[in-house]
C-alpha cells in the first residue's frame, strides 16, 4: 500500500497498520484525521439537546396554509433598491473594465519565437531561414536591399488593418486590437508587417 492508496481507502486492516508503521507522514495525517473526527462527534453530542421550539412546526404549517400553499417571495425593503442598483452597476463596470484590460494588456511573450528578422540574423548560411510567410510586404513599399539597416516597432492596431492586407476579418471583430510588428527601412518607412495573434 502506498500513501495515496492509504489516504483514499484508509480502512483498518493489516496493510493499513503496516503502512502507518512505515510512513511517519501518513501516521501524522491519520492522527489529525482521528482528532478531527473525535472533535466533530463531541460537538454533535453536546448539541443533542438543542432543537427547534415545539410550536415551530405548527406555525410554519399554518403560515403555509394561509398563503394558499404558496410561499410568498421575500421582498427586500424598498429602501434597499437604490443600493442594490448601484452595487450591480458598479460591479458590471468593474467586470467590463477587467475584461477590456485583460484583452488589451500584452501577454508575456517569452515563449514566442524571435522576430523572423532577428531569427534570420541569427541563422547562418541559409537564405531560406527567413520565414517570409511571417512578414507581409506592405503594398507600395519598396523592397529592402540586403545591406540596409532594418528596425522593428510593435504597435497595437485595429483588426480592420488586416483587411487591407488580405486577411479575412469579421465585421464583429474589426475594431478589436491586434498586435503587429512592423519592419522599418533605413528611410524610416514601414516595409513589412506581421500580426502576432
Amino acid at each position, binding site marked *: 500500500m502506498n500513501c495515496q492508496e492509504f489516504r483514499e481507502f484508509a480502512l483498518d486492516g493489516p496493510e493499513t497498520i503496516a503502512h502507518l508503521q512505515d510512513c511517519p507522514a501518513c501516521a501524522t495525517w491519520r492522527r489529525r484525521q482521528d482528532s478531527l473526527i473525535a472533535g466533530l462527534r463531541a460537538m454533535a453530542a453536546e448539541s443533542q439537546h438543542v432543537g427547534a421550539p415545539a410550536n415551530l412546526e405548527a406555525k410554519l404549517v399554518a403560515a403555509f396554509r394561509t398563503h394558499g400553499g404558496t410561499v410568498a417571495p421575500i421582498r427586500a425593503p424598498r429602501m434597499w433598491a437604490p443600493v442594490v442598483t448601484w452595487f450591480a*452597476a458598479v460591479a458590471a463596470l468593474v467586470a467590463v473594465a477587467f475584461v477590456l484590460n485583460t484583452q488589451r494588456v500584452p501577454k508575456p511573450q517569452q515563449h514566442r519565437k524571435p522576430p523572423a528578422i532577428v531569427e*534570420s540574423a541569427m541563422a547562418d548560411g541559409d537564405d531560406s531561414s527567413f520565414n*517570409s510567410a511571417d512578414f507581409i510586404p506592405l503594398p507600395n513599399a519598396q523592397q529592402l536591399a540586403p545591406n540596409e539597416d532594418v*528596425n522593428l516597432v510593435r504597435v497595437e492596431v485595429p483588426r480592420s488593418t488586416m483587411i487591407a492586407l488580405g486577411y479575412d476579418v469579421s465585421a464583429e471583430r474589426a475594431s478589436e486590437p491586434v498586435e503587429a510588428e512592423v519592419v522599418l527601412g*533605413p528611410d*524610416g518607412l514601414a516595409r513589412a508587417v506581421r500580426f502576432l495573434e
Partner: protein
Amino acid sequence: MRAQIALIGILAVTSVSAQGIFEGGARFLGAEPGRPGRVVRNAPYSADVVTESSQTLPDGNHIRQSNSVHMVRDSEGRTRSEQSLRTLGGLAPNAHLPQVVFINDPVTNSNYALNTNSRTATKSTVDHPPMRRPDGVFRRGGSDVNSKIESLGRQTMEGLAVDGTRTTLTVPAGQIGNEQPLQVVTETWYSADLQTVVLSKRTDPRTGETVTRLTNVSRAEPAHSLFEVPADFKVSESQNRPGRGPR
C-alpha cells in the same frame, strides 16, 4: 432615477475610454533594433532623409505622404536615426506614435531603440550577421532579363559628387494581368564619399512616385554622445525577443 442612469453612463464611458479604445486606432507597444546593415567607417555625416510619395488616382485625386528621418554616422561606423513613426505606412492612421531613436554601435556590437517619450531604451547585442536575401521584404540580387541598367553620369548634389544609375524594370504584358507592359523606373544617385544614396526616385505606374533625398548634409564628425543612451533612460535587455521594447 434619471440621475442614476446618467451617472452610470458617465462611469461606463470613463471606464471604456480609460482602456484606450477611443485613442485613435493604434497604440505604441515598443521598438527594437533589428538587423544592422553594412558598417561604413571613415565617412561621417549627418543629414535629414526625406521621403515624399505621390500618387494620382484614376479619378484625379492625389495622395501625398512624406516622412523624415534624421540620420547621423560617425567615423567608427556608429549610426543613429531619429524618426517619428507617423502613420506607419498607413497601418496606424490618426495615431499619436512617439518619436523613436535607433542607435547601432558596431564597435561594441550593441544596438539600442530609444523611446523618447517614456525615457526607456531597449538594448540588443547582435553579432553582425551574414546578409540574407529573403523573399518579399528584401530584394534579390542578380540580373533580371526584364531589367535594364544605364548610367546617368555624375552630378553634384548637396555638395557631394554623385553617380547616377537608372534601372528600368519591365513587367511583361500578361504577367500580372496587365494588357500592356509596365515599366518601373528607379533612379539612384550614389555618393562614393559618403557611401550612401543621396537621391533616389522610383516611378511605378501602380503606386506613383517616391522620392527619397538627403538634405542638410553635414560631413562634420558628430558628437560621440549621440551614440550613447542618455543617463536618465531606463535600459532593458532585448535578448532579441519581441515584447521587450521600450514601453
